[in-house]
């Protein structure tokens, strides 16, 4: 991709026009980019693929349904495109063109699926979402046959909020500290911990729920509650947060930490003043992405939180419900209004995840070590102050006639903050 050659077409044509050249002329290959004939054959092939499908479909092809139509059309399109490209290019280039189209298709399919999932949820959620009571009431007074103007998902929203708060209180300190451990204290044990954590990132979420059920509810005899669900979500989120934070911390430039250590900073100061601030945005992203995963998990909550239709703000007492669990319970009912409520709750959940992602994107938009404008200004100001202080110090020394002495003690935060400033200029 980096060596795209911009050969003007005229020149290429001129080279080809030389008759009877004994040696093959060196024409740089075009890599990527679009040519006019390429675009034309793409459209031609698309049109003929579509026509072939219309012609064949229902007559010869044994498919039925819209899916079959698209498959037939696509196969015909690829075939025609290969032939059209083959008219003016060699075999390698034909393969390249066809595979490029196939790669576009694969990505297109995946992103179409994403759009369909998000769009379908929002579309079906449109019945329940416009009702204000949907966000302010719980389901205690609303039966399955009640219209949408009665009852809502306030209890599930509150439950999700409480559970994710519990989970974050546990996973953020533990997860970030563990990630720092994996990065800062290398050795056999930390490698072992890393292996275990990586294997646990794909821990089936229902197993996390089962474990908390076994320990908290069967073992300690507690009842199902928001707290237990928070624990279950923590067990599931912890490896995810550790792994994401570990990856981010690895990206902290080595020269920053080396500079801090060269200035004599102890390890913990280097971590606190250099490594963590440098990776701040990435760590925030790691935590937010973990949160997005934790919010959406149903199965750990299913086993540990119980079920309730009433608002419950106390995580230690009585069952509590979360948004995904509410969705799950709503759509198990055959009543259309309950299913509409389920889609409404799913749309709210989806919106929550999207908002978290938008925040993560805004915070994590910069790589590690890159500062926002405000941070850069703050760093520059601190730098200027340091400079003034040094000047004053030197002036005082000059006045006191002890320019050769180097006993001036460095201020506390000096070794740590200096390298970051250096980086910003």
């Amino acid at each position, binding site marked *: *991709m980096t*060596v795209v050659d911009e050969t003007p077409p005229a020149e290429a044509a001129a080279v080809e026009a030389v008759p009877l050249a004994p040696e093959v002329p060196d024409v740089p*290959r075009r890599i*990527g980019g679009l040519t006019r004939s390429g675009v034309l054959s793409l459209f031609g092939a698309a049109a003929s693929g579509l026509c072939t499908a219309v012609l064949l479909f229902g007559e010869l092809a*044994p*498919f*039925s349904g*819209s*899916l*079959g139509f698209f498959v037939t059309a696509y196969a015909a399109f690829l075939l025609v495109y290969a032939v059209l490209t083959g008219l003016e290019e060699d075999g*390698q280039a034909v393969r390249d063109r066809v595979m490029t189209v*196939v*790669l576009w298709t694969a990505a297109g399919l*995946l*992103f179409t699926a994403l759009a369909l999932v998000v769009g379908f*949820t929002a579309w*079906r959620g449109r019945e329940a979402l416009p009702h204000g009571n949907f966000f302010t009431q719980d389901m205690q007074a609303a039966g399955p046959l009640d219209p949408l103007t009665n009852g809502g998902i306030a209890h599930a929203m509150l439950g999700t909020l409480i559970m994710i708060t519990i989970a974050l209180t546990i996973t953020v300190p533990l*997860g970030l500290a*563990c990630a720092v*451990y994996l990065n800062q*204290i290398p050795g056999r044990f*930390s490698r072992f*911990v890393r*292996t*275990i*954590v*990586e*294997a*646990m*990132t*794909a*821990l*089936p*979420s229902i*197993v996390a729920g*089962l*474990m908390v059920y*076994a320990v908290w509810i069967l*073992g300690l005899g507690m009842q199902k509650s928001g707290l237990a669900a928070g624990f279950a979500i923590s067990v599931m989120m*912890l*490896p995810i947060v550790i792994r994401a934070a570990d990856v981010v911390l*690895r990206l902290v430039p080595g020269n920053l930490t080396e500079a801090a250590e060269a200035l*004599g900073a*102890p*390890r*913990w100061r280097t*971590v606190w003043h250099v490594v963590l601030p440098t990776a701040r945005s990435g760590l925030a992203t790691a935590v937010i992405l973990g949160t997005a995963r934790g919010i959406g998990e*149903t*199965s750990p909550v*299913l086993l540990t939180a119980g079920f309730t239709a009433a608002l419950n703000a106390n995580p230690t007492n009585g069952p509590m419900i979360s948004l*995904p669990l509410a*969705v*799950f319970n709503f*759509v198990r009912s055959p009543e259309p209004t309950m299913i509409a409520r*389920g889609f409404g709750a*799913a749309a709210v959940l*989806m919106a929550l995840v*999207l908002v*978290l*992602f938008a925040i993560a994107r805004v915070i994590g938009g910069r790589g590690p070590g890159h500062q926002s404008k405000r941070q850069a200004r703050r760093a520059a100001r601190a730098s200027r102050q340091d400079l003034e202080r040094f000047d004053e110090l030197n002036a005082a020394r000059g006045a006191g006639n002890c320019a050769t002495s180097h006993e001036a003690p460095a201020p506390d935060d000096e070794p740590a903050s200096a390298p970051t400033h250096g980086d910003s200029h």
Partner: protein
Amino acid sequence: MPHRPQSACGLGDRLFRHQLTATGVVVLAIMAAVGLFLLLRAAQALRAVGVVKFLTTAEWQPDVHKFGIAAVLTGTLLVAAVAVVVSVPLAVGTALFISDVAPRKLRRTLVTMVDLMAAVPSVVYGLWGLFFFQQHVIGLSRWLSDWLGWIPVFKVDGTQPGEPLASDSVYTASTFVAGLVVALMVAPIQCSVMREVFAQAPAGEREGAYALGATRWGMIRSVVLPYGMGGIIGGTMLGLGRAMGETIAVYMIISPVFVIQPHILQTGSNSVSSLIALHYGDASTFGMSALMAAGLALFLLTLAVNFTASSIVARSRSGAQSEA
């Protein structure tokens, strides 16, 4: 590790070290507790019937001591197999697209979108599969069973090939539908692992391939794919682990049966995790122990798959440390 200067061995640093090591131990303990407590709780049920019988019985009637995971394990593996077969080409294609084909400006956005897709709650996928996707897949299911029905896996009992009046309901709630939905859930996870490895393919070798006159696909085939093979295998297995552990989406789509169901297009299937979700509410103490045993089996299975995956990915990863 370089020689540490004197200041790094002070009291503050020693405390810092111990504290961090302690968090490492705590995390490890939590992870170990998952396996340990499942084992403790499962012991009662496993002792009652024996491991061999537990693995070979298809029924699930723990209260008369007649239970096993043969049916649910088959279902889990089949759902995961369908998911992986469908998701791997999608994931490899998308990863290559993002790393080499997509316009440079789009790439970051595409990466975010893949991450977003991985974070879409599984209950939302389940809703989508149940209320939208299923009715569109039936055509494909019917076609597969009509034309490939002679392959045992695609056989559907009670239908004749080409019979236009056959009811659609034999194709609903099948392993195939659940597998396709799970494929969409695991494809983004696989894709992000693969993309990371593809992006690390050395620039020198890429440009070398171009300099020798390779097309873009030629370069991908001779540089990126061989280099990223570890990532492809590792990502695939990571997706496999996730697919086997998926609960809610599968539970919402399938209609549970407790016989070994090898016909993926036919209605009725099961999986270990949906067995747990189905029965945890009405289980007796012994039944709960049996469910814990099923959970333990699932846990060990996914752990084995994930270990293999992460070791393969780790071996293919070059230069963990990056310099600015």
